[in-house]
């Protein structure tokens, strides 16, 4: 399904974060938003996932504006994992993942066969089956994040939004999470839009990168097109060397901040 933002303006209270921003997500691909803190990445993601009402313009799924969709029907094709989330204390892994079936259920009906199948399938795929009866609160950070992602996958979305899904995880857990998302993208053709802070992780898993600064989209393209010293200097005020791995994926080695340099030379 095709998701696009048309001339979106958005913000919080008196603060305007995004102005007149348009973006079309390539269908069936993984797109990652990169940019410094405060550049508007999360705001864009929230506006695209109908968690934040745009002040101007709007987000469209298959040509229909999101607010014209029935919320429950929309949740059957569009899932979102916000940056901050906390499970109620006593909830188990199986229960939380099953909540992903909420939009597919009738208002008063219990689980259907399809609901149970979907939950089992997701628990298998995310290797959470052995933890099914554990309380989410007792899991490690990496396991917990997998459970939340599993919940959004149980929704069986066509478009998936993830806001910093790897933050606070160790390197190995970061890869586990990313591989999970890649696998779901490959096998189900799900369109993914996410925010990542780790540029090398973003370059590794994304088909398309979108670089943001000051609430604007400055560049978009493949990781090889975008990961250049010039772009990093402009977007992140970062000095970095770029190398290309044997698998053709570029990676960057930060060597310093040019914010500090600018300050020094200004003095």
């Amino acid at each position, binding site marked *: 399904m095709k998701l696009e933002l048309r001339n979106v303006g958005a913000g919080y209270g008196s603060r305007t974060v995004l102005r007149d921003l348009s973006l079309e997500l390539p269908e069936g691909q993984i797109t990652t938003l990169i940019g410094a803190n405060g550049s508007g990445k999360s705001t864009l993601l929230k506006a695209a996932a109908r968690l934040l009402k745009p002040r101007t313009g709007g987000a469209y799924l298959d040509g229909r504006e999101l607010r014209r969709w029935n919320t429950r029907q929309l949740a059957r094709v569009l899932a979102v994992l916000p940056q901050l989330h906390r499970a*109620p204390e006593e909830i188990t892994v199986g229960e939380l993942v099953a909540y992903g079936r909420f939009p597919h259920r009738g208002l008063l009906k219990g689980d259907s066969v399809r609901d149970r199948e979907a939950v089992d399938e997701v628990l298998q795929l995310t290797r959470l089956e052995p933890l099914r009866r554990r*309380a989410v609160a007792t899991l490690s950070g990496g396991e917990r994040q997998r459970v939340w992602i599993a919940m959004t996958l149980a929704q069986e979305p066509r478009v998936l939004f993830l806001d910093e899904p790897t933050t606070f995880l160790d390197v190995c857990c970061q890869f586990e999470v990313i591989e999970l998302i890649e696998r779901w993208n490959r096998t189900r053709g799900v369109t993914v839009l996410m925010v990542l802070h780790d540029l090398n992780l973003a370059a590794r898993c994304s088909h398309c990168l979108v670089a943001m600064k000051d609430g604007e989209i400055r560049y978009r393209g493949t990781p090889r097109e975008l990961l250049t010293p010039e772009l990093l200097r402009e977007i992140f005020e970062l000095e970095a060397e770029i190398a290309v791995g044997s698998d053709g994926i570029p990676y960057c080695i930060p060597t310093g901040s040019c914010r500090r340099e600018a300050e020094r030379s200004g003095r």
Partner: protein
Amino acid sequence: MNGTARIGFRVLLLVLLAVLLLAVLLLGLRYGSLELTVGEILRELTHPGDTVEYQILVNIRLPRVLLGALVGAGLAVSGAILQGVMRNVLAAPGIIGISAGGGLAGVVVLLAVPAWSPWLIPAAFLGALATALLVYVLAWRGGADPVRLILAGVAVSSMLGAISSAILLFNAEKVAGVLDFTIGSLSTRSWPQLELVWPYLVFGLLGAWLLAGRLNILALGDEVAAGLGLRVERTRLVLLAVAALLAAAAVSVVGLLGFVGLIAPHLVRLLVGGDHRFLIPGSALFGAALVAGCDTIGRLALDPSELPVGVIMSLLGPPFFLYLLRRSRREA
């Protein structure tokens, strides 16, 4: 707790809670100044007569245990809803101003304008509901955020409490007559009080049960819930309204009965887990047993005089509260 509770196990626990409630109700019917056997109770109920036993059983004990059970269920379910909506296990009906609003209305009617005292129940009911509405409106800013709801509830409760205190001070000689209401008591309550509030309580309990699935989703947080297709603000408003209705109806007949709204859902959560489809009926059963049971204890403890159910509850409450604090510190 590592969440081992399965569906079958949780259903069994609900059945056990129902058995507990029935046992408590039966005890309340049996004991008092006149002791009745189960056989006598059944005979009196099936063969209405003009005996003393019948009068005591049907006009005094039966309505009182039923009212206690209904009120306990209402307060417990109200607490369970609010703990889910606020995402805070320390939430209770008082947090949205129910106690302060109902209390002020009660004090005004009983002390400031004694001529209105026959209107105690509707006044307390409306006072409680109006206060909950005021708290909601004050907390609203493009949405009713749980933290703002709690802060608005605390602020409004504090102000209304101050007004109540002032009225109590200026009518110090008549305070004894209000104690019954401010502590929470089932003494002298019978069919007329039960008839006034049962429809609200039954309607509220059923509504809460139907909304349990949506409360599960709302408890995950606003953004996650919206992502799952829940209309967050509308659901929150409906749930708050049901919680307010239940607590207001309860408070209007028994007065400011504390702690059951906090204790019952929390204990039941330890037993059946956080799924509101089990937590709500469980809280209803346990809250009903708790209030009806405490009232029976209060009736028997100092026989022939009586301790109000609120005193018994408040004696049970603080130790539990301390236990809660210890437990949450261990988890932090």
